């Protein structure tokens, strides 16, 4: 008599497969949970993985610096051919432009001499611009939420973070991370980018804010209430200490509305060679170096004025740092409180 009833145990192969599927599902869930935890860690400490990022860029960017050379050559050949065909009309246009420029130059020479005399009278001391390194943009994140470019020059060449990057036509951005052989540049078009600018014609100060699009927004405009015109030139104001004053940022293309649109002067990725310059008036870095005593402070709390994490062996801070818009660098370091003030004010947090 044969026994046709189902066997109680599943066959070994099926059991093995089902167990493997269960294990892989558990591992997948753990991996997704782990990556969400990584996001939370990045929220608490935005510098998470900066070292790893620098290493990855150090590996990839020199390769791109070599790989893009033939493409650059091809582009230059195409440009040369285009130049050849349009040469005559362009020469005429340039001759006309040269006439007007010469006329303006004659007027400017007198003004410059007067300005130099006045500055000598007032004993104005001006910091000078200084080029750290001239390099070219080797790679860029053209398909990412963060609009950044990478330079094939790093700490080996003297590039650190928060240095202005300037092309022949105008401002490109500032460095945000530096590896040994590579540096990451936050382009003007990125959402996090804020550049202190003035409108050249009216003298109004403001911020050029990136919005992830090819155009910038002119926000937080202060100064005389003069309506802007399309074509007004926007240059850096030198506030904030990173960008030197007078660097072209762009021109206004849409002055209507509360936040006029700016078209960039220099195309960030088409620019061939760029200068990395020394910061104009560098603000002393007050970020804690070394092991911090307190728990990390979230970004939002920092933006609302919570004090930064304190060093383990640092004295308790005299006052809580004032509320300051985080992206806009402060125009000048606030004067240190006098000893009398410091004694009068209670410490921000009780010492442990």
């Amino acid at each position, binding site marked *: 008599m044969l026994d046709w009833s189902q066997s109680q145990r599943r066959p070994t192969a099926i059991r093995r497969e089902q167990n493997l599927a269960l294990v892989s599902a558990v*591992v997948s869930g753990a991996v997704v949970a782990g990556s969400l935890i990584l*996001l*939370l860690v990045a929220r608490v400490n935005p510098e998470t993985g900066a070292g790893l990022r620098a290493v990855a860029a150090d590996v990839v960017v020199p390769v*791109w610096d070599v790989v893009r050379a033939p493409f650059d050559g091809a582009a230059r050949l195409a440009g040369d051919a285009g130049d050849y065909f349009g040469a005559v009309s362009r020469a005429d246009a340039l001759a006309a432009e040269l006439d007007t420029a010469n006329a303006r130059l004659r007027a400017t020479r007198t003004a410059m001499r007067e300005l130099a005399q006045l500055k000598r009278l007032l004993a104005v001391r001006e910091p000078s611009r200084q080029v750290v390194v001239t390099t070219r943009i080797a790679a860029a994140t053209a398909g990412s*939420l963060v609009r950044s470019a990478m330079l094939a020059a790093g700490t080996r060449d003297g590039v650190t973070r928060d240095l202005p990057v300037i092309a022949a036509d105008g401002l490109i951005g500032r460095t945000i*991370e530096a590896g040994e052989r590579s540096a990451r540049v936050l382009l003007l078009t990125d959402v996090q980018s804020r550049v202190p600018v003035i409108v050249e014609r009216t003298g109004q100060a403001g911020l050029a804010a990136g919005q992830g699009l090819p155009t910038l927004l002119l926000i937080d405009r202060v100064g005389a209430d003069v309506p802007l015109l399309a074509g007004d030139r926007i240059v850096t104001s030198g506030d904030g200490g990173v960008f030197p004053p007078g660097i072209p940022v762009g021109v206004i293309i849409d002055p209507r509305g509360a936040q006029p649109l700016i078209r960039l002067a220099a195309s960030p990725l088409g620019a061939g060679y760029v200068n990395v310059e020394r910061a104009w008036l560098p603000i002393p870095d007050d970020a804690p170096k070394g092991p911090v005593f307190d728990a990390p402070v979230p970004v939002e709390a920092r933006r609302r004025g919570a004090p930064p994490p304190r060093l383990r062996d640092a004295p308790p801070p005299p006052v809580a740092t004032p509320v300051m818009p985080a992206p806009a660098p402060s125009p000048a370091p606030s004067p240190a409180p006098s000893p009398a003030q410091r004694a009068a004010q209670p410490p921000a947090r009780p010492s442990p």
Partner: protein
Amino acid sequence: MIAPPPPPALLMTPDERRRWLLSLWRYAVPALLCALLAALMLAPLPLPVPAMPNLALMGVLAWAMLQPGLMPPWLGFVIGVLADLLSGVPLGVNATLFAVAAGSIRLVDAVLVDRDHRFDWLAVGLMVLACTLAAGPLMALAGRPVPVLPLLWQVLTSLIAWPLLLRACVAVQRHLARTAPRWSHG
């Protein structure tokens, strides 16, 4: 099969063991190709809009379809971490998206066994769009809210790039299958 199972380890001849060790790199080809695609996304295109197709994500999707065993979700996580490091977004954004994408391809494979190329194209387009839209909340979770609408350009170019990428991956797979080591044990 780009890496057929070897004979049992105890029964291998020394020559077979040597060939087996020398053929182990085949298991890493999908992951290495995806890492290469992540590096390829750093090409400095002179475009004003973010129009570089999301090659790394599509590479993960293609290999999760072609070789599910060689592109598990945890490998998608690793490739996502690499893409995060290279593209400068907070660590974990692409890692989450790639892991979820590789896992969801497994789910689709379990439900819809018989599907054609056009359905895959549509599914990949929807998945790239979903990843683009989901990146906004993830960036906000990481403390850096950004607008994701400019990245719709990337979805468009990704749709165009998918057949080419899939064809390249299939060519790689065919080459690997052609040159796979043969074991004499039958």
